[in-house]
């Protein structure tokens, strides 16, 4: 998609593509040297487990960021769907017992919230930043109103199996995240929507001239992201065995950080869902590793901040930038 300025740059560009992976591997080696337990199978499974929900959320957010938009409704949609799914399976507040059928319902609600994001953003021409912020708040507000500040406890072992169950020693949540990744990868590589997302993110005007249905694609991608957040909400509820309005606290920051650290540019058009997987692991490995190395809590925050800047600086293709804002 991008034009090479000069051959001498192409070597650098090749390296840049692999920068996030190099950062991840360097981190793993460094932490492994400090604490060999880091490289144990047990810890590897724990890392996968911590990464499962962020991966699912990132699959949705990556497509939005690839279009050059942003989605701040992650926490609102995750909280709402987690609360709804908790109320639909066997629980201590309602009498519904939908079991696993509650999962598609919750995902559909996530999809509808995403659809609203897309429709408002495209039809009212409001910036995605404000639209998704507003819809996110609406989601949190509805979740709070439904439960009135209470917590709903899940009493359905089958539903909790989505997080606690294991196949080949690996938690179910990890398998579900893997499936979400494969779906996202297929959409990105094998569908027209995937190609259109890149076209819109690279240059929307050209994409329009090329006959790409920009509005429709945007709406569809926001709805798709909502589906992923809905799945994230389901996994969060299964993980904690409960639903409440604050269940998604802190998810937005992790999601956006992981996408960006993975090398997907906030300006759009550059990156992929594979990058986001690497980004999630950088964030998760770093958090795990700093506790393993016994780094002081307040130094941890500083290291995280520095790493984000370093990863973005390494991955950024400056030859394409005419303006930095």
């Amino acid at each position: 998609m991008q034009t090479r300025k000069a051959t001498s740059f192409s070597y650098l560009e090749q390296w840049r593509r692999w920068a996030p992976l190099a950062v991840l591997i360097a981190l793993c080696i460094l932490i492994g040297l400090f604490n060999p337990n880091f490289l144990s199978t047990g810890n590897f499974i724990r890392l996968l487990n911590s990464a499962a929900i962020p991966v699912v959320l990132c699959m949705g957010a990556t497509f939005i960021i690839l279009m050059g938009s942003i989605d701040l409704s992650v926490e609102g949609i995750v909280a709402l769907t987690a609360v709804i799914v908790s109320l639909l399976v066997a629980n201590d507040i309602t009498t519904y017992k939908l079991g696993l059928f509650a999962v598609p319902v919750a995902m559909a609600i996530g999809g509808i919230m995403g659809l609203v994001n897309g429709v408002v953003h495209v039809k009212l021409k409001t910036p995605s930043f404000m639209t998704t912020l507003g819809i996110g708040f609406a989601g949190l507000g509805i979740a709070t109103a439904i439960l009135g500040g209470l917590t709903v406890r899940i009493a359905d072992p089958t539903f909790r199996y989505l997080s606690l169950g294991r196949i080949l020693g690996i938690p179910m949540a990890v398998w579900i995240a893997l499936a979400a990744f494969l779906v996202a990868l297929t959409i990105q590589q094998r569908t027209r929507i995937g190609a259109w997302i890149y076209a819109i993110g690279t240059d929307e005007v050209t994409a329009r001239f090329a006959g790409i249905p920009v509005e429709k694609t945007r709406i569809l991608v926001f709805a798709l992201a909502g589906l992923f957040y809905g799945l994230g909400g389901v996994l969060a509820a299964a993980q904690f065995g409960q639903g409440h309005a604050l269940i998604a606290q802190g998810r937005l920051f992790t999601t956006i950080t992981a996408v960006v650290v993975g090398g997907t540019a906030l300006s759009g058009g550059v990156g992929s869902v594979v990058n986001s997987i690497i980004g999630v692991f950088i964030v998760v490995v770093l958090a795990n590793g700093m506790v393993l190395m016994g780094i002081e809590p307040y130094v941890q925050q500083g290291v995280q901040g520095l790493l984000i800047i370093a990863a973005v600086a390494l991955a950024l293709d400056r030859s394409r930038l005419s303006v930095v804002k």
Partner: protein
Amino acid sequence: MQSKTAARTHTQLNRRSMLKGLAGLSGAGLLGGTFPMPAIAQETTWTLANSMRSLANPYHATFAKGGEEFAKSIGAKYEMLVTEGNSEKGVSDIKALLQRTGGKLIVNVDPNDSPDARVIVEEVKKAGGFVVTQWNKPDDLHPWDFDPNYVAHMSFDGVPNAEAIANALFGAFGGEGGIVALGGILSNVPAIERKLGLDNAIAKTNGKVKLLDFQPADWNEQKAFDIMQAWITRFGDQIKGVFAANDGMGMGALEALRQNSLAGTVPVVGIDGIDAALTAVEAGEFAGTVAWDPMWTGAMGLAIPYAHVTGKIDITKEPKEHREFYGTGVIVTKDTVAAYKANPPKTDFNDLWGKATGQVQYRS
């Protein structure tokens, strides 16, 4: 290509239908009761209000309910003010309500941040209303300096309660071994107090209990989950118990233990007494929790000033331990949880200081 006018009608129609959709959404909020609702009967001319961070956590939801129950009992108009973690909003909502009620306002406020308390107290005094603060206020701001309008300040003492629950944890694993501890946001007064209580308890074991690691998880369940996972890798079976400065983080740690088949084997303690924690105590997964009584703080923060305005007491003549006081925390363990659940604390609106346990102390 569509003509300009046609395109415009198209957008307007869509915008109108979108606004309808949005109205529907906010309507759903209204039905759920997020907005202040006036009480039915109205016998007193005073308006009562509770102000808190949000209704999305069990503590504040119950705090709001306590105020509502008291207002209902005297037939007063009641409002809930929510700051959403925004100090500006907290202060300006109270100012607006003072204006609307012409100063005939009794407000029970959990200030978003300590400095807000001073601004709120000054505004209330100027308007001739009455105020009680909860948890947060500057150390040098005292009710008796703003007689009679600044009626009282209420809090819970984190130090002895955290120490007691830490001891319950030590008892659960036999009093000897390593523990890990999750703290709140370290600049918060309750987080500092609870850490101090834990340190005191550890010091008194003469080295039998060792703190393997302390990490702030910022009151966040998810963060606690991830930190607990890393601890399992780092310390393995050296971990004999988990101390969490609130139940939410304790639940996060418990789920991480469950993922590693350690739930029930490694005891956890928390603080707050939320329902999920009480259930975990019953199941033998939590060794205990400290139950505050937000129903009581929510009601008494209104009942005490109301007793003053109706002439039942003269607040200016009350001793200092009735102006700045701690409430009672109840230590709930496996032995006491059944009794606690069967007989939850009751709030007697006429027993103004019955559950007060001493004057607020300043440790810094």
